[in-house]
């Protein structure tokens, strides 16, 4: 099921590492802020999303394709949550889904790199 896209020293592996670290930073911010928010009685979304993203980011940094799948899963759930919170109000959907959608675009090349990188 899980097979590595990593081939040490390839551009693809470096891309995965950098993207993974970037996502990990965001994930930690979401987690810390999310814990704070829950402690104040706020929405648990950020805490849950932060936890999911930590797993995804670590796998992506290690160039594992599963990380990309997990992130796409988080994005789909995020979209559903956003619709639940604000409905189809596009300008209020933006802060919830726009940046995560950009991350999806950054994650997608992992699949392409995988195909090219295979021997």
């Amino acid at each position: 099921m899980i097979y590595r896209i990593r081939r040490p020293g390839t551009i693809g592996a470096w891309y995965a590492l950098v993207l993974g670290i970037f996502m990990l930073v965001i994930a930690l911010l979401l987690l810390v802020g999310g814990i704070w928010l829950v402690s104040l009685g706020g929405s648990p979304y950020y805490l849950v999303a932060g936890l999911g993203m930590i797993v995804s980011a670590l796998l992506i940094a290690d160039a594992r394709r599963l990380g990309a799948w997990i992130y796409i899963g988080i994005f789909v759930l995020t979209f559903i949550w956003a619709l639940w919170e604000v409905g189809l109000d596009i300008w209020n959907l933006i802060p919830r889904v726009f940046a995560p959608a950009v991350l999806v675009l950054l994650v997608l090349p992992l699949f392409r790199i995988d195909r090219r990188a295979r021997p």
Partner: protein
Amino acid sequence: MKRTIFLMATAGIAVAGGAVLAQQAIAPVPDTETAAPSTTPAGEWRAFGRTAYGDRFSPLSQITPDNVDKLKLAWTYRTGDVRKPGEGKSAYAFEATPIMAAGSVAFCTPHGVVIAIDPETGKERWRFDPNANTKGVDHYACRGVSYYEAPANTPECAKRILSPTLDGRLIALDATNGHLCRSFGVNGMVNLLDGLGHVGPGYAYTTSPPVIIGRNAVLGGWVYDNQYNDEPSGVVRAYDAVTGKFAWAWDAGRPGDHGPPPPGKTFTRDTPNAWTVFSADPQLGLVYVPTGNAPPDFYGPNRTAAQDEYNSSIVALDAKTGDVRWHFQTTHHDVWDFDIGSQPVLVDVPGQYGVVSKALLAPTKRGEIFMLDRTNGRPLAAVEERPVPQNGAPGERLSPTQPFSVGLPSMAPSRLTEKNMWGATPLDQLWCRIQYHRYRYDGQFTPPTVQGSITYPGSFGVIDWGSVSVDPVRSLMIVNSSWMPYIDQLIPRKKADQRDILPHGSGKESSKVNTGLAASGGTPYASYVRPFLSFLGFPCHGPPWGHLTAVDLKTHKIAWRKRFGTTGGVAPLGIALPTGIFSLGGSMVTQSGLTFIGAAVDGKFRAFNTATGKMLWSTDLPAGGQAGPMTYISPKSGRQFVVIAAGGHSALKTKAGDYVVAYALPR
């Protein structure tokens, strides 16, 4: 039950009969009423709100909903008055609504330079620079000039322009050549600082044109907000528009005494100041004064009875004597800076039994618009006192209730929830959600606290000095409104002192102007009041941020409502999202059914169909249009022009400039 109905019917008939009698008894308006609705020529615009009624309605109809899309730039005039380094730390804004009278378009610049230009070509005819001493001035604004036609036997300046200055003077100029009217006051000027006692540099001056009623020019003044609790008086004064002679004063601290202060005394210090534009009804002989708060705004246990009675109110004064005929308070014990920025609008509205009511519309920063009977101050649209949050800062005594204008649609936003928190990304949205829970928020009228309180609506105002305009033909009131929550926070004095949060003029505080920090000296707390923004500077609350609404004054229902303006000009890369945006400045309506408005921070100038709300025309202004538009007929060509000042507003960070632009149909 039957008896009650009978009584009501009888009362109704009695009221109706009384009104008819009252109307018959009204004397014709005397010749000296320069800015009365009945004496203002159709093609002119003689005051901030066109007439002393302030309805911003022009009877012109050359430009119509059918041809407005052909409007073209007719001329551009540049005043040369631009912000110099270090000026306007609090605000630098070209807020003037030009007037058109005596054959010229006239206005004042942020520095108070009075300029008259040719209505047809935009060429300068004359200018008068009062060379105001701007030491200590942080707030550069002048909302316009007033026009007065003197009685026939007056030796000089038969037609004159009255204008305030940044250093507390009222000047009178000959409208035809801009020369000082030497017989007015001392060499053409009245010193408004007389009787105020100690006035620190930049602490008290007038930024709005006086209202003209009969022979009197009536004006208040702006007093530096939130510095300490012994600031100059907010006294309202009337001067003879011919001689500049003091006529009367309304000093909230000396009821019934309308003369100048006795020798060695001053007008009562720290009374509610009235900084915005007044309106007047020459037939009733009343001046309507919208008041602000006696400083400081955010903590008020030691306020005097006079302050608590007259803060944030509409006060109707007898234009001949200065006596208070009635007053109506829009916020009790105001600790939110809900001073009334909007000129009251006088309209005659059809009511029950076919009786026309003499109404006064009082738009407020709260977004409530009160409709009062301007003869006696009683509500014409129901007003309800509703319980509001309690338990303010230690020692604070809050009003248990506040008035809500339930008889007219409210422009106020609904209560914020965590879901309303916004941001450009999930991270700043998360930050805003955390802040939302950290601050105190119990809905509207959450009192300022040391913890920090969300104030929504906040002191930016749902409606501010742009006020509203009223189309009497269609019985529609046009309202541009902004939704901007604020954080109102108190800082204990000891901490404030450690941080050098000191009153204006103390030396160390200058870097703190425009950060929202103010000393509020003489109380146990300084104040820190700012918009609720994320660390990226985006609003913490989601759109819509601005609306344009038409309210039917017959049915008291919303006729139409739409998001007003885009994020163009304020969003990164100028991305124009149709979210509705903040606006500052007013609108204007015409007989032909058009509403013109700049105001939005997106830098556009737009025309709407007043009846339907459809946008029919829009153009890019050369700089921020945080001002009110006006219209007139050029005497030379008989063509209708639409004019607006475009100079930007520094506090809103709109594009700065020094433009006055005119639009007209191509010949």
